């Protein structure tokens, strides 16, 4: 099966799931309508109505983890091709990737020492 056919199957799988979901929605709509009642469509917070909008500038505490993750994530892109050819290349591949991983680990250690790996 050539590659393009495989991607076509994946695309078909996605469209098939969308079809399943839409048919389920149609079945649910056929079963009955949702009745509009006061207070029903307000976000439910455990017995009280919270009407104020909640879309605020959410203060995430893992910002420094995120920065380190953005840079560290790239290492994965280089590791997959290396892993595939590793057995052929033998020792030079191990040393090569060793240097690469050591460099990245250095960055991680620096972050660790600057207390970036903590809940800010």
């Amino acid at each position, binding site marked *: 099966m050539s590659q393009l056919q495989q991607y076509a199957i994946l695309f078909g799988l996605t469209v098939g799931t969308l079809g399943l979901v839409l048919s389920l929605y149609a079945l649910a709509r056929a079963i*009955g309508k949702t009745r509009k009642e006061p*207070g029903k469509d307000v976000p439910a917070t455990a017995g009280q109505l919270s009407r104020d909008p909640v879309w*605020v500038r959410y203060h995430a505490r893992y910002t420094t983890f995120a920065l380190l993750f953005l840079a560290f994530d790239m290492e994965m892109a280089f590791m997959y091709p290396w892993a595939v050819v590793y057995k052929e290349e033998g020792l030079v591949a191990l040393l090569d990737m060793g240097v690469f991983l050591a460099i990245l680990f250095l960055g991680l250690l620096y972050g660790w020492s600057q207390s970036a790996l903590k809940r800010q």
Partner: protein
Amino acid sequence: MFGSREFSKPNLLHGLIGRATGNDLRVLVVPGPELALAGGLDLMDAGLRMASGPRDANVLLLLPPLGDKMLNAASVAFAQMPRPRAIVALGVKNISPLPEADIYGELSQAGLIESVNSLRLHFAQNSFSNSVQSFDAPALQSRIEYTCPMHPEVVSNQPGSCPKCGMDLVPRETGTDTGQPEEKSVQKTQSSSNAAHAHSSHVKTAPAEVDHGEHKKADGESGDATAKYTCPMHPEVVSDEPGSCPKCGMFLEPVKAESDHGSHSHGSHSHESESSVSKLIGLEPGFMSMIEMTEGTPRSSDGLQMEWITVPFGPFFPGLPAGFGLELTLDGDNVAKATTSSFCGFSDSLENGPINAGDYVENLQGQMPLAPLTYRLLACRAIEAAAEKTSENDNLRDATLAQERIASQLRWLTNLGRQLGLKGIERKAAKLQLLIIGADYEQIIKLTPELSQFIKKVKATPFLRRRLDAVGELPPQSNWDGPQSIENNAAGRLVARLDDISQSLALIKKAGAIGEIKLAEIGNAAGHGHASVDTARGKANLHVELKGGQVISAKLDTPSMRHTELVAPLTDQQELGDALVAIASIDISPWEMRV
């Protein structure tokens, strides 16, 4: 009629769905699962599963006692439950804002099982019916109030312009006051400022420009030598360099000392950049400056000025005590401020004149459903002290008190298990609690090995101590008289409560029998009496004044009243999950809080 979904002629599929709904019941217990356990009802055994919120539930189970604030909250929860839904009332007759209950049963395990079976029938028959009515309740009405985007504390009922900054007020929907548990404090917190974004009007160069310029920004690095830096929260902390305040870690803000007003001419501080934002060169008119918006807001611990939201963790929050109204101001997922209230506090029953001693004892016991016998003992002892009489079976009474303490600690463990996701502990503690509550002396002795084996299992739960020992650090001089523990954190309190169970078991074994708590015969004695009882949550004391066999005045001081002040320091700047576990670890009973 208020529970079923509308469909003209229900067909086979609707019947099937009705039967399926009947077999998969998700219950939202009002006031809370602890009440069911205290009343000896085993919901799991009856085939009901706990719902985590109103959207997840299809059965509303009402248990006595129910105040009107609790009923208002129940009507809000019922309104938010998706149809088909049903109301089951056990041992409760008048549930005014809620519609007529679908099934009435009496408050016992047999009554519960019988009402669950009739509930399955009810769902099978009229999950779908053609005559349906909308449910409405006073707590659901909403009215429009107007508030200024820049100053959330300015609130008025009709449109106009804000007295402080002249911007026109923005409509905002809010509940009518009858629905809210207590007066919404006028000083709304940050939350309404994000409603500010509903305003599309541009920033007018309002008179308030003047004070912007004065407020010099704390440019952390290039602090010039003459400026003084002080901490916004601790003005007495004064330092001549930028940094963070040793007391609270907040960033030190530059203060406008008189001496340096004229002298600052340092490069980066050119006077021109000091002028207000809107006079910056090259700025398009109508530019919505963000500096103005984030200027006044307090800084979080990592120096960023973020917006806070006020989120209610209301009466039916799984994991928190039932009926405990908690409102947290969240900065991200850190708690910045916590305000507590109670949906079912007790009220002094002496407003309408003195009542005789026997009724006072029954009345106090009725108001405290989570610890009825404890407060009955407290009332009897206080009245007997006032009448200088001593009851003969005092040590047997202590055995009853110990039995109730064990039941209360086991309910606390169920709550902790539900909050931390430990289903095994939650189920086992509930089962043991149901056995203990109805047991007489021999049964308790037979239960002792099972109980101590369960205590060992809880202590051996992997990672439980590690999860709890960083949480719930009580401030040093706080008046905490609950179970004393060596380590001052949630893990210490867990171990203290487990030891409390074993001590109570030993006490019951020593007492030899469980005594019935009856008020000694006092005739028409008079005088002052004081008594104090060591309840599961701490020391409760009652001061009673008797005249002619009648109680004229009584002053009750319960542990939960004192411990609610601990909630704020306990949860300050804590992560949300830790704050909730800390609150659960001090085991507040909203029934013991004043209304």
